[in-house]
């Protein structure tokens, strides 16, 4: 057993950290305040640095690196900006990955290559008003008519929506089939007639990441854009979410790391009662607990990522990593705000944003409750 990163992974971390600190961090607070998705910075630049297709083979426009590299990239971006972290995670795990896993050679050439090269931004449409944690409740329909499928329905809370060029969308293709059967996945291009966007969500956190509704009104999608076989959409969605959990776990880890560092920097400067506040064990013990939890989360996330790259089963490990890392992010950011005192509650310091950003990691791509369901089911099978 080896706990060392490779030279390539270290170089990647240095590179992403330098990029994140010099280019992403300076505008993070303003983008958050203005709910501004700066695509040139938050996506196009990632493409130029070869980060938009990290885990995919070179022949499909990727970098041919492993999932630990992916985890590191999302972690380092999220350390300064949770919104930029989720942009990459949703693009890579939720849109590009199902096309890589289930796509035909033609679909990979047409859609995966631009996604991986960073010239197209991806999004994933699963959630509906009646299908959140219960993906089987999908009501969006797709009815075959000749060589086309006609989509009708609404998807909600879709990350990267509006700006994304390529969407992987789940729809019910067989109304008679049992809940989890009869769902199929489709690749839908932005601009397809009948495909439009609904309201933009006003969110608590990750405010510079756009979240919108997808609206399908008699939207005609060619049959060649069906992703995977007809009726296996639920499996596509579950496989996609297994990988997605690594991305969100990495985002949570990065947010927690950012808050931990901010708390260390602040408390080692701040003086009260004529001494550094870190001289109080009440403060230093809190820092110790925060750092310990962040380190535990990191090992869990990298372990899940290692298993994904080694083609070992990782559904349970990624659920555990996502559960622990997201709850760690919430605890650590909350403690960071507390350590900053009144300053931490203001937008003068980044921990206030980090705490708001952390909350969503306990909710999206499977709530903490759903992760416990997945883990519990595997234990008691």
């Amino acid at each position, binding site marked *: 057993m080896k706990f060392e990163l490779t030279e*390539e992974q270290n170089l990647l971390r240095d590179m992403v950290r330098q990029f994140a600190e010099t280019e992403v961090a300076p505008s993070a607070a303003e983008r958050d305040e203005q709910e501004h998705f700066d695509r040139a910075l938050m996506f196009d630049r990632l493409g130029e640095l070869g980060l938009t297709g990290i885990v995919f083979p070179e022949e499909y426009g990727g970098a041919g690196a492993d999932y630990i590299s992916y985890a590191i990239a999302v972690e380092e971006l999220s350390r300064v900006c949770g919104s930029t972290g989720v942009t990459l995670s949703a693009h890579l795990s939720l849109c590009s990955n199902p096309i890589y896993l289930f796509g035909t050679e033609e679909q990979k050439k047409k859609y995966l290559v631009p996604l991986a090269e960073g010239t197209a931004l991806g999004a994933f449409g699963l959630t509906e008003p009646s299908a959140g944690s219960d993906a089987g409740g999908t009501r969006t329909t797709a009815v075959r008519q000749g060589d086309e499928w006609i989509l009708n329905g609404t998807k909600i809370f879709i990350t990267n929506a509006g700006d994304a060029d390529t969407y992987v969308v789940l729809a019910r293709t067989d109304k008679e089939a049992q809940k989890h059967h009869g769902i199929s996945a489709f690749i839908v291009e932005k601009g397809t007639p009948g495909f439009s966007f609904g309201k933009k969500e006003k969110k608590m956190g990750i405010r510079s990441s756009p979240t919108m509704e997808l609206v399908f009104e008699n939207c005609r999608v060619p049959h060649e854009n069906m992703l995977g076989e007809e009726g296996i959409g639920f499996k596509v969605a579950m496989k996609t979410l297994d990988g997605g959990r690594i991305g969100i776990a990495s985002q949570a880890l990065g947010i927690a790391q950012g808050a931990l560092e901010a708390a260390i920097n602040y408390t080692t400067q701040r003086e009260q009662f004529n001494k550094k506040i870190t001289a109080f064990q009440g403060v230093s013990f809190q820092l110790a607990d925060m750092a310990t939890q962040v380190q535990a989360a990191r090992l869990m996330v990298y372990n899940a990522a290692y298993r994904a790259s080694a083609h070992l089963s990782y559904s349970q490990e990624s659920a555990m990593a996502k559960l622990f890392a997201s709850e760690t992010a919430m605890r650590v950011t909350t403690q960071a705000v507390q350590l900053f005192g009144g300053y931490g509650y203001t937008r003068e310091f980044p921990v206030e944003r980090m705490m708001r950003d952390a909350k969503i990691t306990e909710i999206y791509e499977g709530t903490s409750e759903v992760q416990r369901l997945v883990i519990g089911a595997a234990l008691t099978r």
Partner: protein
Amino acid sequence: MKLLVCIKQVPDMESKFKIDADGVWYDRSDLAWRMNEYDEFAVEQAVQVKEATGADLTVLCIGPEQVKETMKKALAMGCDRGVHIADDQSHRRDPYQIASLIAAFAGDKGFDLIFTGMQSQDRGSGQVGVMAAELLGLPAVTTIVGFALAGDKITVKRELEGGVKATVEATLPALVTCQLGLNTPRYPTLPNIMKAKKKELLAVAAADLSPADALLQTVKLTFPEKKGGGVFLEGDVGEVADRLIRILKEKTSVLA
């Protein structure tokens, strides 16, 4: 055309340094390591020349096994191959010995242009580049902040004291040492990091290059005494302003 860029691996300058047991260098355990900042300017400039001329670019680094990681960064930035002069004792060597190793390797290779940083961030002697040039019988231009190549001639800008700049010409072969402001080093992109893995990395034992004897010996290393907070300028407002401008010009790049 053949190019060589010499780099050094140094600790992250934000590390907490301790003095080692011998009292002549810093403790090298538990440090994060980076490419010397000035060497990044050297690598960037060398890669730009390579891209403009199709020249062949070798990166050289002296040190223990761990320096290979820093060499991979240079390879990911665009160097064609690496030469690792394996030397566990490189941190004990004086600048003349380091220069002698570079010269011993480069002596019969016919490099047209050699790039180095103007100094290292840890030892900071600023001597290695110029001494290597001397040992190789090459002209050396130091602390360059501008660079142009035309045919077999380079025209470079040098930074002098007090913000004065000089323009110097030299005929190849030559050696230049690179200063902050020369360029903005590129990021090593992930695909290039992955490709660097496959580039040639030649190892040469330092002993095989017969390093010269040291000319200098570090006797003792100590931390600077803690100084009070800042400098107070007092007196007539106009005069204080003049002194402030002078300090900003000489000590910083704020007014450069």
